[in-house]
């Protein structure tokens, strides 16, 4: 039972990590609270589902969903955020909220208000060791997340572009004076972050076997809480916080059966941690 809950918690935490990482990367480089990121997550799920219905091949649809989300993220950055960078932070925040609302409504109007099923055959099979049981979709989530995290780590630490990206997050102006094309780095940042959100959308679509217009509503704010919990802009902190929140939700609600909304757990954890560490778990002043 305990091990089972652990597996469930880590699977949910992995999806949170995929969503929150893009958010924290955007914050790290542009200092924008990118609420519409959750809209891009839902868009990824819809694009993935549409391509799955057209092609019938899951892995390809996962890839197309990620690509669709990446393109959308890039457009948002180019046409909405970059022109507003010189303004007080509240302007991009409100744009982001407006965009998120508009996206949710567009999904509802275009794809209908109902939930759509995403019953893909993945071909991995379930895994059982004794009483411990992992479903196919949980294995899928763990594998995809692991692959993306390894890719992200390798990209950020081993490539010159990754180095430039980390430098931009520290100080964009100084980095540009060293001859780095900051605007291109920001674009790459959005492409990667949005592709991860798109992957999370497809994974949740398959895991819950449903895609619905407001699927981004809960992640929209929960991911923000996770990002703050980990220390805004801190990538390892975000992964750690995602797993902690995933586990905390599963354990508090699943085992202790506290009559409390599951979605408030992340915020209680966040407020509690901020009391003692005002810059998050791994954040620095």
């Amino acid at each position, binding site marked *: 039972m305990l091990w089972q809950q652990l597996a469930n918690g880590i699977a949910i935490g992995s999806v949170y990590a995929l969503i929150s990482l893009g958010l924290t990367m955007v914050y790290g480089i542009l200092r924008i609270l990118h609420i519409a990121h959750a809209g891009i997550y839902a868009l990824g799920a819809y694009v993935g589902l549409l391509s799955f219905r057209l092609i019938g091949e899951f892995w390809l649809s996962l890839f197309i969903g990620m690509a669709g989300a990446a393109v959308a993220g890039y457009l948002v950055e180019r046409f*909405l955020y970059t022109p507003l960078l010189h303004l007080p932070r*509240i302007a991009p925040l*409100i744009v982001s*909220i*407006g965009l998120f609302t*508009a996206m949710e*409504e567009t999904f509802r109007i275009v794809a209908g208000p109902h939930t759509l099923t995403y019953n893909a055959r993945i071909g991995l099979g379930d895994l059982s060791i004794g009483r411990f049981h992992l479903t196919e979709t949980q294995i899928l989530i763990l594998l995809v997340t692991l692959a993306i995290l390894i890719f992200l780590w390798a990209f950020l630490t081993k490539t010159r572009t990754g180095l430039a990206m980390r430098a931009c997050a520290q100080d964009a102006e100084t980095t540009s004076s060293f001859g780095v094309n900051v605007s291109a780095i920001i674009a790459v940042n959005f492409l990667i972050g949005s592709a991860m959100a798109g992957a999370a959308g497809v994974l949740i679509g398959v895991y819950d076997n449903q895609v619905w217009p407001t699927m981004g509503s809960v992640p929209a704010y929960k991911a923000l809480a996770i990002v*703050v919990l980990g220390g805004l802009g801190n990538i390892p902190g975000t992964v750690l916080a995602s797993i902690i929140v995933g586990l905390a939700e599963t354990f508090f609600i699943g085992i202790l059966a506290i009559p409390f909304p599951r979605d408030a757990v992340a915020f209680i954890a966040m*407020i509690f941690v901020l009391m003692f560490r005002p810059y998050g778990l791994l954040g620095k002043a």
Partner: protein
Amino acid sequence: MISPPPQPSPLGGGGEGWGGSYCMISGYHITILITIVIYAILAHSLNIITGHAGQISLGHAAFFGIGAYTSAMLYTGAGLPFWISVPLAALVAGIVGAILGIPCLRVRDDFLAITTMGINFVVEAVFLYLPFFGGAMGIGGINLPNWFGREMTKPEYFLLILVVFVVLILLDRKLGRSWIGLAWASIREDEQAAGAMGVDIVRFKVVAFVLGSAIAGLAGGFYAHFLTFIMPQNFGFGQSIVILCMVVFGGIGTRWGPMIGAIILGVLPEISRPIMEYRILIYGVLLLAMMRFQPGGLLGSESILTRTFRRYVYRPWKRE
């Protein structure tokens, strides 16, 4: 996530009492008017925190809710009249604002935005899950206030809160010209420089937070007595966003902007009833377009409206 302001409850009914009999406007219109004035008060209170002191709050509806619940419980539970329960609601919301504000203001800018959002979720969850607050059913049986030995009519209630709103605006004007207003402006423009000049940053931030929360609590009291029953969902995160959008839409930091925002965004869902299907979409796109092209809001110093006014009305008038 975001819904437009809640529908006015169909309580109105045209000609009740003498207020309705010679008043030309119907119950439906008076309901919308009251809703708009309550939103104007709320937007105005958030403007103190976000516009004057420059602290982004994404959880303003929590204090609105605390005010509404305090007033409702004092009225239905303790049997206190409206005239005592509503000021007490403002007081309680102000005190809770101080308790929550002090740790909140330890964290800076974006952390504050998300922390206040978290507070909103926790407060809504507390209202929803503690039986003491009525749970999902909320609290009912709240009435419009009594005066001169009878219940107030809706037009009279409208006038009452309109007067309160005007008093608050005058107070805002007074504060803006005082030391507090100057200190807030300095914190908003450059927190570090203000601190270096000897402005007690934390104290003035807390003052703004308490004042804004208390006024939101007052609005909550008015809201509870107007709707006659309240539910936790009325005070969720979506509501906070609606209030913030009104402030930003009208012009953040301006005196009349939040009111204009409350009027436009309050009326919009009503006049767009024929295009029901698309109205939230329009709401979102309008917000997005507004911020993208007029980031200062309708009455901001660089908006088309203000510039046109300056060029064609103010300057010619000055020259004469």
